[in-house]
């Protein structure tokens, strides 16, 4: 099963050092500790500055070198079994500290504290950080975050289900062939909705579902619904959480098209930059509405799913520009690879 392979792949005791969130957390935690050390050691405000410079001279190069090494060695490190990875990281820090100490000692005009003291400090901080990431991983994944993802699975509005069924029923007598197609579309949509969508899927698959959904809505709303696709720059192979766009399109129809008498346009633009996938959705905005709570809930749901999949690397922003409502999603560009799809990478 793909999932058990995934769990093995991610049972490493180490976090994914190539994840932006992990890197940020390391930077913040180490600097906060350094700052705390300075504040404790410095007697008065004037001494604070000197201490800060001194500690930065050692901490910052070490931090940068460590992060570079960890990013470079990430894949190899994470393949190591059990606690071996932790030991290797500790050893790495041990060596880097000694190296920088030897290099930096002649440059400082005062005699620094003995190397042993730095070793102890660095190893303690490193060990604490690694433990923190382990705990965080355990708190978020796999079991808990998988359960969370399952609970967050996109739900289609019952309103849509019943109206679509009504629309299909109306077709059965007049246009049995079209009715057949519609039922097939519905089956496919609901298969995706009820499936286990915790793994990332190719973007093309997601767009296919969106098109099925829009076909159904088109039947119901006729000329009132117009859709513009801008997918020329689309990264077809990118991996995204399934049903990340469909609920947004459903929102656009529900809030942007249905409350209007006149026809409206939903525009969907998907493009990639070097390492990001962007999706921008626009729909007419009618101003006052009484159903905005539903919209916010759907957005919060997608935001949380994005976070569980991509941590700080994904974002969802909305804005209203006059008579247009826009949702912009940014996701890291995960290339589709053969073999087991990368599932919940809730690390970091």
């Amino acid at each position, binding site marked *: 099963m793909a999932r058990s392979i995934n769990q093995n792949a991610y049972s490493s005791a180490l976090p994914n050092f190539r994840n932006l969130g992990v890197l940020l957390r390391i930077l913040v935690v180490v600097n906060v500790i350094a700052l705390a050390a300075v504040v404790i050691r410095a007697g008065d405000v004037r001494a604070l500055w000197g201490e800060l410079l001194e500690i930065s001279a050692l901490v910052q190069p070490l931090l940068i070198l460590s992060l570079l090494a960890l990013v470079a060695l990430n894949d190899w490190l994470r393949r190591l079994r059990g606690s071996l990875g932790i030991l290797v990281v500790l050893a790495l820090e041990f060596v880097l500290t000694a190296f920088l100490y030897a290099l930096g000692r002649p440059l400082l005009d005062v005699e620094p504290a003995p190397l042993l003291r730095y070793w102890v400090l660095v190893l303690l901080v490193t060990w604490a950080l690694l433990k923190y990431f382990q705990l965080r991983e355990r708190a978020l994944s796999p079991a808990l975050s998988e359960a969370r993802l399952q609970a967050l699975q996109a739900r289609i*509005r*019952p*309103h849509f*289900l*019943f*109206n679509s*069924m*009504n*629309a299909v*029923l*109306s*077709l059965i*007598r*007049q246009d049995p062939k079209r009715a057949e197609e519609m039922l097939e579309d519905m089956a496919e949509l609901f298969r995706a909705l009820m499936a286990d969508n915790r793994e990332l899927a190719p973007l093309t698959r997601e767009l296919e579902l969106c098109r099925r959904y829009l076909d159904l809505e088109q*039947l*119901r*709303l*006729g000329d009132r619904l117009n859709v513009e696709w801008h997918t020329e720059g689309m990264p077809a192979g990118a991996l995204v959480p399934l049903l990340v766009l469909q609920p947004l399109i459903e929102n656009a129809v529900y809030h942007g098209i*249905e*409350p*209007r*008498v006149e026809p409206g346009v939903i525009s969907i633009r998907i493009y990639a930059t070097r390492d990001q996938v962007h999706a921008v959705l626009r729909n007419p905005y009618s101003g006052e509405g*009484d159903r905005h709570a539903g919209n916010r809930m759907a957005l919060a749901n997608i935001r949380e799913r994005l976070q569980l999949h991509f941590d700080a690397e994904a974002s969802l922003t909305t804005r209203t520009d006059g008579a247009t409502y826009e949702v912009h999603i940014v996701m890291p560009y995960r290339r589709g690879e053969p073999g087991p799809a990368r599932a919940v990478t809730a690390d970091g």
Partner: protein
Amino acid sequence: MVIVDDEAPARSRMRDLLAECAREIPLTIAGEAPSGRAALELLAANPADVVLLDIRMPEMDGIEVAQHLLALDTPPAVIFATAYDDYAVRAFEVQAIDYLLKPIRLARLKEALARVRPGRPPEVEALRGLQRSPRAFLSAPERGKVHLIPIADVIYLKAELKYITVRTAAREYLIEESLTRLEQEYGERFVRVHRNCLVARTAVRGFERSAPEGGETHWVVMLAGVDEKLAVSRRQQHIVREFGKT
């Protein structure tokens, strides 16, 4: 019978079902409308006994349409239809108004048709019980037709004897409602300047003292869109100060 639904397939499905009912229950379909506004026009020209009314429609929902239908010379009976709406369903049970759930079953439609009394419109109080948000329009009957006044166009509402005068920038209308009820329905949109008068907050341009000959000086409110000035009663004088603050 008239079918009102904004979705064409839903209307066509209803037509099929009614055609089937027609074998047992005498009925003819007088027409169909894609919106409440179209329905009001259609029914003013061709009165019908029964209207099948979808609840979720753009511009105004079915419940509001049903209220405006009451302003027709011969208001029809109404059967509501909705796809999925927990709130509405509960409200319908409370108000004991018949409703159909989409997709509609033939048997259920027959039942509703057998029960409905043609030409007997729903009670206005019951419809108000179903209403969830303020109506988007006020409706003024005019020579058999119903004129819809967008609430945003209303500058003031003034009670006179049995009727209420609705003033817009373009003209005046007479409607038969209660000022107190309108005040409750629209809440913050209007401010009461006088026992018999509500003014749209957005239309208030300012206040000034007025001293009619032989009378006491009192405040009047100046309005955007019309030249008239309306008296502020002594009891409501505090609103002059409240507006001054904002």
